[in-house]
């Protein structure tokens, strides 16, 4: 459904992404792993329309979406859970969820219920300010907020960042559950172990170039990946 072809992005004066091509098939979980500064986040931000590419083409359901403004991209059904959660700290949990559905004009009742079913914790904290939630809860809220736009593709930037391992496992269980319910997921992670366990397809990115592509579980046994990312 999402096709990235020969994408090049300049970011802060350097070429952060040097011609990568990625294919995200519908209803799958695709992951992009790599070290710091490999260009993972930049790729995601370019798809979301937050950064403009230097060249290359991004298409979604065969429609060219390269360099569209971010609000048009959200309207087309691509949403992003930004790195470091970035919930709105002085808005309540419920308000945060409503923000996620900002471009929708229809009733939100069912979707709010859907998010509350996925994350019962959020329902308990519905009236609390998002800034007072714990890190794990904020990550749940960030995911829930992204789901409120009823996305076809959800892109997640480092959902495990700064969270305890047990919480990370919980978050990834929910990512799988969301995927089972029909949302395609493009995930970037530094925690290669859990990402490769979760994903159908995985790409390895090194300093702006793709160096490997494979089925998630197979890459887990790949010697080079083991050496570089799994330790």
């Amino acid at each position, binding site marked *: 459904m999402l096709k990235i072809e020969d994408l090049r992005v300049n970011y802060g004066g350097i070429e952060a992404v040097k011609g990568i091509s990625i294919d995200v098939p519908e209803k799958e979980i695709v992951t992009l792993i790599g070290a710091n500064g490999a260009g993972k986040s930049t790729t995601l931000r370019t798809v*979301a329309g*937050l950064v403009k590419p230097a060249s290359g083409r991004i298409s979604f359901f065969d429609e060219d979406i390269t360099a569209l*403004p*971010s*609000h048009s*991209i*959200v*309207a087309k059904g691509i*949403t*992003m859970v*930004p790195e470091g959660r*970035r*919930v*709105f*700290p*002085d*808005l309540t949990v419920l*308000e945060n969820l*409503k*923000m*996620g559905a*900002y*471009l929708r004009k229809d009733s939100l009742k069912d979707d709010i219920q859907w998010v509350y079913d996925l994350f019962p914790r959020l329902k308990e904290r519905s009236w609390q300010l998002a800034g007072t939630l714990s890190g794990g809860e904020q990550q749940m809220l960030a995911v829930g*907020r992204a789901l409120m*736009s009823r996305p076809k593709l959800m892109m997640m930037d480092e959902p495990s960042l700064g969270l305890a391992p047990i919480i990370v496992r919980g978050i990834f269980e929910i990512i799988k559950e969301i995927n089972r319910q029909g949302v395609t997921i493009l995930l970037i992670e530094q925690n290669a172990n859990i990402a490769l366990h979760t994903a159908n397809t995985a790409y390895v990115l090194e300093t702006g170039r793709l160096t490997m592509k494979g089925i998630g579980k197979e890459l887990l046994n790949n010697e080079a990946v083991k050496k570089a990312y799994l330790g």
Partner: protein
Amino acid sequence: MENKKTQNITTVVGIVFLLLLVIVLEQIISPTSTMAMLLTVTKKSAIYAVVAVSMNLLNGFTGLFSLGQAGFMLMGAYTYAIFTIPRAERDAVYYYYDQAMELSFPEVFGNALGSVGFLLGVLLAIILGGLVAAAVAYVIGFPVLRLKSDYLAIATLGFAEIIRALFQWTKLGPITNGANPLKNYVRLNSFKIEMGDTTIGLSTFTTLLFATICIGIMVMLINSSYGRAFKAIREDEVAAEAMGINLYKHKQIAFCISCFFAGVGGAMLAMFANTVQANNFKSNMTFEILLIVVLGGIGSVSGSCIGAVLFVFAAEWWLRGLDSGKWLFINAPGVLRNGFRLVVFSVGIMIVILFFRRGIMGDKELPYYAKRIRDRFIINKPKAGEKENG
């Protein structure tokens, strides 16, 4: 939800009560008594509250630090005055210039529809004042809104100064009367009902009513999904963008609406004062409004209203006695006269800021505190239960 409904009803009842109280007070207090000052400062604080809330909408809710308020008020005030000076008075006002404008809304509508038309004409002139300010805001928004924080403040401040200079330009004299004041337009004291011998003055009531309507509209905007988007932009621009909020468009909307109400506030200030002169709308005025917003609490509408009342009442009334030597029934010694008022005022502001770091109301609204006080004093049974458990 139930709670919210009662809250809204309480607010409406409170406002209606206040408006009725003002009507009564206006009839009781004679213009010559010392208490007449109460009505004057009420009017002025209502007008300042409108402008303060409009500034809060931009600075507190959208996170755009703009200091152009005085410039937009000036445009509102001039537009209002220009379109309400009666034709017969024009020659006396535009003494040095051949006036280019002959249109007076209250006169035109008044001739056609009587007193209703007069009111309609005044309203139209006020709204036009706001629209002019908003239109100019829209245009300067293109370059200015690409700036962030301090730079935006500097740009808007500079813009307000340019506007002030522009309105005094002699080439524009036929419209703006150059550096000379505009006067003889429709003022607040025109709002009264005359029945035979008795006159029911409604100037304070009208000001308060206009202010209530303006602030009410802004509150509705803040509580709408647009308001939520504004707050999202304030909290985190990147995340807001990722939610599909068109940053630039929403900043532009917030800027235009804020300036619209600044213009309306300016028009009301013109009605309050006897003359309109560009020299009165200096950056000083912007800082007064900013002071009110900070004092009341950035991001709190009721805070801005309370701040406006405290500021105007203290500056114009409560501390005035110091100048004449009498204050709080004390005969002040000579040292305390002539300007000492400003010292007391500044110390007062410092004390408030020391004790209320985030302004009097913080970013909460009045009902929040009402609820907290009620919880503390009335419902203390669950608290006793808690102690048993703990």
